[in-house]
C-alpha cells in the first residue's frame, strides 16, 4: 500500500475562488492510501515546495498528488521537488483543478465536487504508480551518411567539421550525385561543377570522413546511438589504394560500346571507366557486365597499361562492419521513366529528351561538349519546346506519374529556356506550363527575366501530343489564355520529367525500420517541427529522399540533419523517457500485432526459453521493446490482444483505476 500525500493548491484565488480547497483536501484525506492531506496558497512557491518536502520526510510518503494547475505548467516542478526529497519523481501525479476546473466552472459546489473527483482519480492512479527510472544507453560517436550527393556531402562535411568521424556510403563509383551532372544552377547561374567539386575535394581530404564508394548498405541492426551496420563494398577490380586515376586504362580499353550512364546513355564509355574527370575517389572501376577479361578471361589490356599495377581481376565483394551512433539517409532522386508517356513520343524520337538529358547536352563536359545540338542529327535546333509537369501532379494513373508537384521543374525549365536564348538568340523557345511555381529567394525574378529579358514564350496549357514528322516534331498544344490550339513545328522537345525517390530508398527504409509515404519518400518525425528526423530515433533525413527539393533547400536540410546528428553524438549517454512500453513475456503470443503498429520500430521478436510448470522447457517467440527507441505512444498496448503489452506511467490498471474513480 502506498503512503500518499495530497497537496491542494489555492493558486491565490485562481483555484480557491471557485473551488473550496479545504473541502477538497478534507475529502481526499479519506481516500485509500492517503496518509496526509493539506492545502496551501501557492504550492509551486518555495514555501509550498517545502511543505511537500517536509511531508515526504515526516509521513514517509511514497506517492504524491498535487491538485493544482495543469501538469503542463508545473509537473516538472513538483517532480523535481519530490526528487529533492528522495522520492522517485514518477510517483507524482497532478490533478488539474485550475485549467480544467476552476477556470471553466463558475459554481462553487459543483466546481468543488469536480475537483474532488479529479483528486480521487489522481489518488487512484498514484496507488498503482511504480518508481520509474529512465534508461541510459551509450552513444557510438560515429555517423553514417547513406548517399554521396550534395545532401550527403554537406551533411558529412558539417558533422566532420564538428569533430566526429563520418562514413559516406555511395553506390556509384564516385560521390557527387545528380548535382555533378548538372550544367548551371538557378537562380545565380553559377556552374554546378564549380561549386560542387571543391566540396567533393573537401570530403576526400577531410580526415574525419571515409568514403565507401561503389558500396551499399547490406544490413542495419541496433538502435539510436548503437547501430551495427554491414556495408558491402562491391568489387571494382581496381585496387583503390594504388590507382592514381591517370586514366590510361580508360583510353586503352578495347571495349568501347558501353552506354555512359553519367551522360544518360547519350554517348559511350569503356568497360573500365572513371565516371567524370573530377570524380572522388578518382579511381577506375571495371564494369563486370562488359569487361571481356572478366567475362571470357581473354584481354587484360588495362592490366598491361597500368603502370601502378592497380588492376586486380580477382577482387571480391568485401563486407565492412562498423558501429554508428546516427544514420543519415541521403539517397536522393531520379527522374521518372518516360516509357508510359506515348503522347510525347519519347521512345520514338531521339529529339525528345528529358531535362536531365538537356543538362548533359548543354554541359561543356557532356556528349556534345556543351554545344546544343539535336541528338538525332547533330544539327542546331531552331525551335525548342519545353513541357512542364510531365508526370508531376498526375493523379489519374499511379503507374504513369506522381500525384505530387516535383517542385524543381519550373525553375530549371526557366533556366534552360533562358540559357538557350542567351547562347543561341536565333532559337524560338516555348515553355508550356500549368502553373509557374517559383516561391523562393530571387526565384520569381529569375523566371520573369526569362520572359521579359530573354523573350521565352511562356504559354499556359499543356502539350497534348508530339508526333515526329520527317526530321521535325509536330507539337500540338493548347493555349488556354488565347483559347487556341497550337501546332508548333519543333526541332527539339524537352520534357520536365517528375522526380521520384531513388529505388534504393525503399529497401533501405525497411533495413532502418524508418517509415515511408506512399510515394516512397521518407516520412519525417513531424512534418512541421521535426522535418529532418525520421520517426525512428537516430535516423535522420537529408535532401530529396524526404521530398522534392532544389539545391539550396537540400543543402539547408543537409546542414540541419548534420546539426541534429552532432547534437546526438555530442552526448555521452542517451537518457530515455521512462514512460515506455514493456511486454510481459509470459503472456505474449508473439503475434506481431504490436510490431506492426509501432511507428518507431522499437519492437523486435526473440525466441525465448520458458520453464513450464511441469519442468519442461518451451521456446516461444516473444516481443521485446527497445526502451531507447520507444517513445511511449501506447499504440502497441491496444493492438495487443492478450494485454501482454503495457505502458509504464500509463498502465492499463492505472487508467482503469482513473476511470473507476471518475465514474464512482
Amino acid at each position: 500500500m502506498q503512503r500518499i500525500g495530497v497537496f491542494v493548491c489555492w493558486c491565490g484565488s485562481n483555484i480557491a475562488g471557485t473551488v473550496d480547497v479545504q473541502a477538497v483536501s478534507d475529502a481526499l484525506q479519506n481516500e485509500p492510501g492517503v496518509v496526509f492531506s493539506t492545502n496551501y496558497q501557492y504550492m509551486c512557491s518555495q514555501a509550498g515546495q517545502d511543505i511537500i518536502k517536509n511531508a515526504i520526510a515526516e509521513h514517509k510518503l511514497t506517492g504524491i498528488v498535487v491538485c493544482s494547475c495543469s501538469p503542463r505548467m508545473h509537473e516538472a516542478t513538483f517532480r523535481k521537488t519530490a526528487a529533492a526529497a528522495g522520492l522517485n519523481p514518477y510517483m507524482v501525479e497532478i490533478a488539474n483543478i485550475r485549467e480544467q476546473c476552476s477556470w471553466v466552472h463558475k459554481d462553487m459546489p459543483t466546481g468543488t465536487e469536480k475537483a474532488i473527483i479529479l483528486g480521487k482519480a489522481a489518488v487512484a492512479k498514484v496507488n498503482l504508480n511504480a518508481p520509474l527510472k529512465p534508461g541510459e544507453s551509450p552513444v557510438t560517436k560515429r555517423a553514417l551518411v547513406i548517399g554521396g550527393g550534395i545532401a550527403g556531402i554537406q551533411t558529412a562535411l558539417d558533422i566532420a567539421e564538428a569533430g566526429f568521424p563520418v562514413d559516406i556510403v555511395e553506390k556509384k563509383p564516385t560521390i557527387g550525385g545528380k548535382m555533378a551532372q548538372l550544367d548551371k544552377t538557378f537562380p545565380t547561374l553559377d556552374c554546378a561543377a564549380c561549386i560542387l567539386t571543391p566540396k567533393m575535394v573537401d570530403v576526400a581530404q577531410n580526415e574525419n570522413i571515409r568514403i565507401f564508394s561503389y558500396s551499399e548498405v547490406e544490413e542495419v541492426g541496433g538502435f539510436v546511438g548503437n547501430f551495427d551496420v554491414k556495408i558491402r563494398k562491391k568489387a571494382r577490380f581496381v585496387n583503390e589504394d594504388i590507382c592514381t586515376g591517370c586514366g590510361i586504362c580508360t583510353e586503352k580499353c578495347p571495349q568501347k560500346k558501353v552506354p555512359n550512364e553519367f551522360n544518360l546513355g547519350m554517348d559511350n564509355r569503356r568497360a573500365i571507366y572513371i565516371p567524370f574527370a573530377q570524380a572522388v575517389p578518382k579511381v577506375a572501376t571495371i564494369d563486370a557486365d562488359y569487361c571481356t577479361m572478366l567475362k571470357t578471361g581473354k584481354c587484360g589490356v588495362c592490366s598491361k597499361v597500368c603502370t601502378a599495377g592497380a588492376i586486380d581481376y580477382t577482387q571480391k565483394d568485401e563486407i565492412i562492419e562498423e558501429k554508428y551512433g546516427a544514420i543519415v539517409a541521403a539517397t536522393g532522386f531520379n527522374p521518372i521513366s518516360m516509357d508510359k508517356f506515348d503522347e510525347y513520343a519519347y521512345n520514338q524520337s531521339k529529339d525528345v529528351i528529358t531535362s536531365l538529358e538537356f543538362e548533359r547536352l548543354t554541359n561543356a563536359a557532356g556528349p556534345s561538349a556543351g554545344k546544343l545540338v539535336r541528338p538525332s542529327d547533330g544539327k542546331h535546333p531552331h525551335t525548342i519546346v519545353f513541357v512542364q509537369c510531365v508526370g508531376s501532379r498526375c493523379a489519374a494513373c499511379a503507374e504513369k506519374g506522381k500525384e505530387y508537384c516535383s517542385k524543381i521543374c519550373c525553375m530549371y525549365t526557366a533556366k534552360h529556356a533562358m540559357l538557350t536564348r542567351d547562347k543561341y538568340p536565333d532559337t524560338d523557345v516555348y515553355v508550356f506550363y500549368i502553373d509557374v511555381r517559383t516561391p523562393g529567394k530571387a526565384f520569381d525574378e529569375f523566371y520573369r527575366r526569362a520572359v521579359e529579358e530573354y523573350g521565352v514564350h511562356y504559354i499556359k496549357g499543356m502539350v497534348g501530343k508530339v508526333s515526329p514528322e520527317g526530321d521535325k516534331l509536330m507539337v500540338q498544344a493548347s493555349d488556354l489564355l488565347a483559347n487556341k490550339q497550337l501546332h508548333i513545328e519543333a526541332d527539339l522537345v524537352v520534357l520536365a520529367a517528375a522526380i521520384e525517390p531513388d529505388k534504393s530508398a525503399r529497401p533501405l527504409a525497411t533495413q532502418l525500420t524508418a517509415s515511408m509515404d506512399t510515394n516512397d519518400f521518407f516520412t519525417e518525425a513531424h512534418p512541421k517541427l521535426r522535418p529532418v528526423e525520421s520517426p525512428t530515433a537516430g535516423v535522420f533525413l537529408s535532401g530529396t529522399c524526404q521530398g522534392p527539393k532544389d539545391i539550396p533547400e537540400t543543402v539547408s536540410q543537409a546542414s540541419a540533419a548534420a546539426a541534429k546528428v552532432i547534437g546526438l553524438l555530442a552526448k555521452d549517454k542517451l537518457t530515455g523517457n521512462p514512460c515506455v512500453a514493456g511486454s510481459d513475456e509470459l503472456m505474449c503470443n508473439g503475434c506481431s500485432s504490436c510490431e506492426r503498429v509501432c511507428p518507431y520500430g522499437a519492437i523486435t521478436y526473440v525466441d525465448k526459453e520458458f520453464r513450464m510448470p511441469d519442468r519442461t522447457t518451451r521456446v516461444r517467440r516473444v516481443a521485446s521493446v527497445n526502451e531507447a527507441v520507444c517513445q511511449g505512444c501506447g499504440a502497441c498496448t491496444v493492438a495487443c490482444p492478450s494485454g501482454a503489452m503495457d505502458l509504464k506511467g500509463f498502465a492499463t490498471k492505472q487508467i482503469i483505476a482513473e476511470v473507476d474513480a471518475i465514474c464512482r
Partner: protein
Amino acid sequence: MQKVTCDTLVAKACELLENGTVDRVLGWKNGEFVYDVTPALFTTVDDIKSEFVFNDFCGANFSKYLIEETRKTESKVLVFLKPCDTYSFNQLLTEHRFDREKVYAVGIPCEGMADITKVKAAAGDGITAIKAEGENLVISTLYDDDKAVACADVLAERCVVCKSKKHVAYDELLGEDGDVIDSNRFDEVEKLEAMTEDERFAFWQNELSRCIRCNACRDVCPACTCEKCVFDNPESSVVNKAISDSFEEKMFHIIRAFHVAGRCTDCGECSRVCPQNIPLHLLNRKFIKDINSFYGEYQAGAEAGSRAPLVDYTTEDIEPTDAVLKGASDNA
C-alpha cells in the same frame, strides 16, 4: 454427404504414419452420441483404423490444435483441413503461432456440415444412428421409424452461407479444389442494421442474456489463442470468470469480438459450440462487414502474412462518426 469418404482419410492417415512423414494424426472420433463427433489425436495405425470417423458432423476446426501440438515434439503432425479451416491455418501462420515445418496439412473438400439442432428439429429426439445416403441423412431414433432428411435442409448456418470452397493452404489436397464463393453471409447482419436502435438492443439483450460465460466460444476460436486471456488475468483489471451483472457478458462479447476483429476468418466455430445457441458469429461478421465497407475487402487468412486492417491505416480513413452512420442503415 461428403465427397471424400472416411476410408480415403483413413488410408491417407495410415500411409503418412507408416511412411514416417508424420507421427501423429489430428482427426475425429465418435463421442457419446453419433452426432457428438470429437477431435482426437491418433498415434497408431490400429487406432486410426478402429476409431477414426469422418461424416457430416466433423465441424471442428483443427487449426488451433496445432499451436499446442506442434510444440510437443520435433516431428510432424498430420492435420486434415476443410476449406474454411485453411483460412484459420493461414491466419495463425501470419501470427507466428506455430511452426509450419512441423505440420503436414491435407486439404479435404467439404460439402458443408450438419447442424444437430436442425437435425433434431427435423427428426426428433433420441437419435441412435445417422447414416448418409446420397443427398439425405437417414436418422434412426428410439421412438420412430427411420427418417430421411435432406442434407441441404440441416446444413449449419455457416455452411449455408459458406464463403469459400477453396483451400488457401495445404501440403496435399484430396479431391478437387473449389472456388471462393460470393455468399450472402452478411444478410443477417444487414437485417439487424436495418432495425432501430431499440430493436437491436432488445435483440441482443435477449441473445446475450442467455450467456452462461462457459467460455466455449473463446476456447474454440482459432483467433483466440492468447497465452492467457485478459478475462482470465487478474492483472488486467477486467478479469471475470462468470456473469455477474447485466453488462458483464456484453463487455466480454464486445471485447472478444474486438480482439479478433480483422483476424477472425469467419469460421463460425464460436456459434457452433455455443451451448446457448447465441449467434455469436453476428458480432464477428459485423466487424468483417464494417472492415470491408470502411477499408476495402479483407479476408483474414486468405493470404499468410497479410496485414490485418486494425494494424494498418490510410490517411483518408473514415471518421468514427461517419462510420457509425455508414454501419447502420437506420442512421442514414
